[in-house]
């Protein structure tokens, strides 16, 4: 069923009893042209673009849990493209352009809201680094502007710009096209659109092994729902990428860390934009439900626990209370952790692996959500052609051998 004002009206008259399931839950076939491992936003987007732009009809997405239940459902929904290096600017801006038309393309409201992303400069070095970002972005045709503390407070009246702060606000950058999108809707929208193009989404289907032929090429995946033959495997497994790739004997420059987030009790609209603080390891926005969505840091040690230390979250809440004194008496409703796969240069790995037929899209670390459409788009091209999309080419696994790293350690507000 196509969603429209008319369909909403029709279903409303039928007491909303007639909405069909938005995607099928098929049984696995014995073979597919391509198998994507991981039904998060990036994996579902990959399957969608493979089917839509590259004409592959016979695609499966296998997921050990439920669709969108990993980091896609655990992130803080921030969308922006104000990265430093040209390679990253091209990648994240590619995603930003796709965000702008995504709801129409998928016929699914992903609630992309360009409400502005403000990054605070709270030390002398922050000022230098963030101004450098502004200049680099503007040279690349990406909107980003420098604000004085007073201009920052005009844009976000909740912000405390008092000189009494341990880290006073010395200025800020603002990307007005940045903002938020509804994370679940992104997974659901891509799942529904991919399903309509014939993609089989196989939930509760855990990959247990990767089968290879005598020449070493991938020939299929062993799963908890049986063997699935395929000559093209795209691994998009976020924090579990090292585990999946080890099944094919591939070792990666990745470490998995828990990253935490929290939401407050819902309140009336008070926070007009996203504010991020690198110096104090905190960022905050407000969801359309009214909850303040707060991003905390990673733990110091690698882990697959999907929790995280209490002291990490309280450290972030200290920072939030200092930056936004108005929220001090709010109670936190929920906190959770997701497992993020971090590369040494804080940039993703998109492309081929030493195993023929096995491709990987990983290493998005603490900031993969914003890239979802672009990541899926370039990875689908890479899978279909067997060679990297021009935008994905610099993000090859090979860069760790050649030394052409893309260092974006300063691009994220999260403690790396």
């Amino acid at each position: 069923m196509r969603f429209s004002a008319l369909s909403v009206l029709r279903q409303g008259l039928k007491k909303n009893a007639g909405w069909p399931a938005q995607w099928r839950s098929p049984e696995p076939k014995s073979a597919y042209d391509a198998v994507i491992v991981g039904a998060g936003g990036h994996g579902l987007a990959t399957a969608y673009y493979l089917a839509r732009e590259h004409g592959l009809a016979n695609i499966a997405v296998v997921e050990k849990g439920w669709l969108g239940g990993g980091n896609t459902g655990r992130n803080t929904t921030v969308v922006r493209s104000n990265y430093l290096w040209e390679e990253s600017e091209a990648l994240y801006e590619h995603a930003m352009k796709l965000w702008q038309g995504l709801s129409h393309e998928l016929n699914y409201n992903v609630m992309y809201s360009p409400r502005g992303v403000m990054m605070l400069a709270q030390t002398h070095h922050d000022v230098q680094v963030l101004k450098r970002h502004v200049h680099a972005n503007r040279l690349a045709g990406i909107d980003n502007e420098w604000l004085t503390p007073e201009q920052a407070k005009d844009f976000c009246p909740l912000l405390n710009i008092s000189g009494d702060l341990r880290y006073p606000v010395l200025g800020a950058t603002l990307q007005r096209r940045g903002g938020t999108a509804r994370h679940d809707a992104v997974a659901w929208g891509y799942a529904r659109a991919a399903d309509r193009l014939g993609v089989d989404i196989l939930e509760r289907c855990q990959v247990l092994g990767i089968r290879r032929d005598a020449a070493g090429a991938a020939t299929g995946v062993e799963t908890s729902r049986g063997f699935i033959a395929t000559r093209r495997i795209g691994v998009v497994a976020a924090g579990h990428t090292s585990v999946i790739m080890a099944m094919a004997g591939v070792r990666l420059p990745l470490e998995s860390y828990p990253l935490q987030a929290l939401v407050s009790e819902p309140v009336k609209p008070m926070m007009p934009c996203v504010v991020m603080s690198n110096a104090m390891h905190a960022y905050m926005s407000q969801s359309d439900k009214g909850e303040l969505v707060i991003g905390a840091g990673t733990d110091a040690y690698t882990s697959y626990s999907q929790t995280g230390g209490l002291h990490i979250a309280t450290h972030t809440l200290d920072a939030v209370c200092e930056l936004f004194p108005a929220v001090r008496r709010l109670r936190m409703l929920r906190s959770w952790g997701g497992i993020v796969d971090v590369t040494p240069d804080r940039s993703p790995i998109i492309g081929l692996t030493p195993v023929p037929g096995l491709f990987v899209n990983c290493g998005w670390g603490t900031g993969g959500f914003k890239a979802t459409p672009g990541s899926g788009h370039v990875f689908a091209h890479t899978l279909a052609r067997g060679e990297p999309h021009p935008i994905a080419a610099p993000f090859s696994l090979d860069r760790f051998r050649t030394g052409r790293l893309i260092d974006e350690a300063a691009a994220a507000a999260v403690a790396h």
Partner: protein
Amino acid sequence: MLLIRCPYCDMDRPEIEFRYGGEAHLVRPENPDSVSDDQWAEFLYVRTNPKGLHAERWRHIHGCGRFFNALRDTVSDRFITTYRASEPRPDLPETMA
């Protein structure tokens, strides 16, 4: 917050007294000139990142200041054992995790 036993101080102390040092038992190539780019990349960047038993370095930075190694289960975050930096990895079956 984790409780970590420092094998030098022989005490359980809170995690904030320690600094994490990443995967343990990585040995820098003895003769750098004879090492290929692949081997350098492996030493510098590639990590085992296991789901389960992990041998890792810690430093008791706000205590005795010394480095030691630990075996920890990365699913439960439970420490199986800690041992001094000079000692080899204890030979424990994976099922210990």
